[in-house]
């Protein structure tokens, strides 16, 4: 075992030293190529140096950016790494396949889309969450238009982080395709769409989201609530209530996420449509609407915000104080409100913003 450890140590140290040497020797040539497009023949990698050149390109890919750099990176990778990655995708070693997919993704190698699609269709790939997700990412950046159909067909459910990451990479066309099929999408994806609209400033889709919240989702919630209270006697009641409750929970969460998204954007052209949330029993909804009022600096909502300082929920009270501090930019006005308050808890929270 000592022999094995020593041998592998010497081998890995040698490999590291060689990689370092190659990277040092060719980094200037690579930099000039990526930035200015001046290609030097020394950058044509020998088969045994492939991984060293891959590391070199990857390092540049993380530290420099720009349209030309991206174009040259892609071109170089497609020119020299295509066969290398094709072989790695066929490797029985899991880490090699992951490394290949990461490389294809990082260098945006669209010329391997067919191979990657074929790779994804293997059952063992779909069963492996890491491999399948990386493959989906590659297909998204390769502008594969039927990506969400593919996910639906294979009943793929990703985490919200993964959906969000995918959505940041979608092209305009892919976004349109996604929104047009909103009704058929799974719950997790719907939530992530709302998040993504705010996070990635997809303001074109804000009216769509607002319509979903104020009309469809809210009405749906009212209808679900009434159906839970008065379930049809013709059906199996317990089961029906359970299904309705689950749907209601999902709708409630969608409303909260939608409101959160609007509050992050900090603007809406139709504020009156959201006033009904001032009277909601769901504290998260109230918190979001308070945040929105603060960001939009709506003076007419001052009374509501002051009243919310005494809300039974601590987070709502804190958000109300924050919104008031945004609304009333002058410290003196906050002090006036402070002096008129009877509630000691509300006073303490407001004091925090006054002293800031």
């Amino acid at each position: 075992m000592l022999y094995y450890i020593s041998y592998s140590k010497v081998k890995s140290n040698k490999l590291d030293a060689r990689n370092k040497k190659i990277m040092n020797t060719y980094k200037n040539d690579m930099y000039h190529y990526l930035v200015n497009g001046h290609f030097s023949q020394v950058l044509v990698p020998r088969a045994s140096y492939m991984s060293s050149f891959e590391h070199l390109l990857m390092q540049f890919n993380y530290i420099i950016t720009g349209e030309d750099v991206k174009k040259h990176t892609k071109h170089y990778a497609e020119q020299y790494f295509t066969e290398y990655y094709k072989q790695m995708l066929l490797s029985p070693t899991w880490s090699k396949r992951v490394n290949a997919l990461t490389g294809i993704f990082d260098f945006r190698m669209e010329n391997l889309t067919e191979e990657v699609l074929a790779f994804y269709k293997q059952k063992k790939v779909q069963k492996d969450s890491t491999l399948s997700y990386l493959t989906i990412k590659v297909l998204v950046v390769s502008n594969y238009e039927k990506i969400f159909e593919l996910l639906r067909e294979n009943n793929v459910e990703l985490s919200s982080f993964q959906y969000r990451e995918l959505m940041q990479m979608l092209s305009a066309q892919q976004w349109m395709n996604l929104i047009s099929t909103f009704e058929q999408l799974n719950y997790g994806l719907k939530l992530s769409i709302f998040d993504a609209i705010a996070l990635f400033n997809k303001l074109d889709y804000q009216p769509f989201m607002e319509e979903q919240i104020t009309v469809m989702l809210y009405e749906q919630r009212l209808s679900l609530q009434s159906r839970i209270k008065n379930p049809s006697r013709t059906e199996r009641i317990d089961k029906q209530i359970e299904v309705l409750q689950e749907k209601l929970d999902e709708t409630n969460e969608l409303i909260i996420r939608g409101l959160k998204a609007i509050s992050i954007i900090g603007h809406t052209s139709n504020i009156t449509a959201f006033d009904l949330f001032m009277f909601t029993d769901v504290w998260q909804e109230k918190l979001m609407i308070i945040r929105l009022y603060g960001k939009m600096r709506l003076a007419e909502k001052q009374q509501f915000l002051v009243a919310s300082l005494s809300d039974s929920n601590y987070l709502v009270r804190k958000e109300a104080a924050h919104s008031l501090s945004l609304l009333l930019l002058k410290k003196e006005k906050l002090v006036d409100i402070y002096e008129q308050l009877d509630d000691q808890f509300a006073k303490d929270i407001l004091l925090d913003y006054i002293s800031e």
Partner: protein
Amino acid sequence: MIQWSDFLQVNTIIFLSYTTIVTIFYFIMFIFSFRSMKKEKNLNKVAYHYSLNSIEYTKPVSILVPAYNEEAGILQSVRSLIALNYPQLEVIVINDGSKDETASKLIEHFKMVPSSQVFQKRLDTKPIKQVYTSTIVSNLWLIDKENGGKADALNAGINLSHYSYFCSIDGDSILERDSLTKVIKPIIDSDGEVIATGGTVRIANDSVIEGGQVKQINLSKKPLVIYQVIEYLRAFLLGRMALSRHNLMLIISGAFGVFSKEWVIKAGGYSVNTVGEDMELVVKLHRIIKDHKVNKKIVFVSDPVCWTEAPESSTYLSRQRRRWHRGLIETLWKHKRMLFNPKYKSIGIISMPYYWFVEFLGPVIEFWGYIFLILCLIYGGIYYEFTILLFLAFLLYGSIITVFSVLLDEWNYRRYSKISDVFKLYIYALTEIIWFRPLTVIWRIRGIYDFLVGKSSWGEMKRKGL
């Protein structure tokens, strides 16, 4: 009247059965760890984790640093935390009534001023004297409170924290730049199914530290430290890695772990009545997961590293090990109803028995083994050839498991670049069972004694700082 021969026979059967069961268990753990490591061998980890460096994808984290008399290392530790490669975080240092200059050093170095921050007291703690905030580093806080112990300090930090996840770090530890990104990945990937994660803790004595970062990893020249390095490798790369694979892990080291605040508060926060508050919290989390009948996980991630300072003298090491073993027993005793309780599924049927019979009783059996051997030498009744053979087998087994841990580390992480360091680790791993292990047995037996007499103090630790 019990005959000596019967006594001899019964003890031999106990030792053989115990050693066989433990060996099988360790072997199974090795297989699990080996399979996980084999899968990730040669993985390009930088590229693999790169996308997590974006604020849109990560979850904000509050880093809690409880500090009691940590003036030697606290500045390095905080500097390493504020330099972390993580999009959104806050650092909260909790000065737990230190008698040294921990608080004043922080206030002076980071130009901290009193803050009137209002926060919800969701966990009971000792009174807070003052909360400070830095004027030069955003999101750096200092809670100056009365002494209440590490658990109490962490609970105070949880109360002040602004984010849904918190990371507990020891005041004498240093995180690698991308450690937080790596350790939180399972939480993000699982959409909240994973409620706590722990990373690897490694020993940094004699390594070169600059600007709060480990610049060059060296293996210490002190044998006592090298044995601890090996011990940590075995504990993290073999034990926790294997147990975590099936959600069986009962410890996330207090030096480096990320937790869901919501679940920790549900569990009542850190317990102030034990010195093993880190293990107690994880056991409590497992307990409420099963009580709530929800599918939540607690996982270990081997790649992210937290560097810490190991005791260099046997006096302080002995204190540490006594405390650790006392903490283990306190936790096991407090949650004794979980042992063999089918309600807690694999935790009650596998993890708890493992910690009771291998971790807790291990030193007792080993200690009794040494006594028994002496008795046999005095009263006779042993076959010398057989004993020597058994002793060699014991050495071989003990060493092989340890050597495998060194091998796994070298295979996958290659932290030590010098071949001489790896060689040294190998040789020490082979001899650990002769020198170091008997010492830890004695320390752990003293830990049991401390538990039985109801000792409650931590025991002073001397730090020289990383």
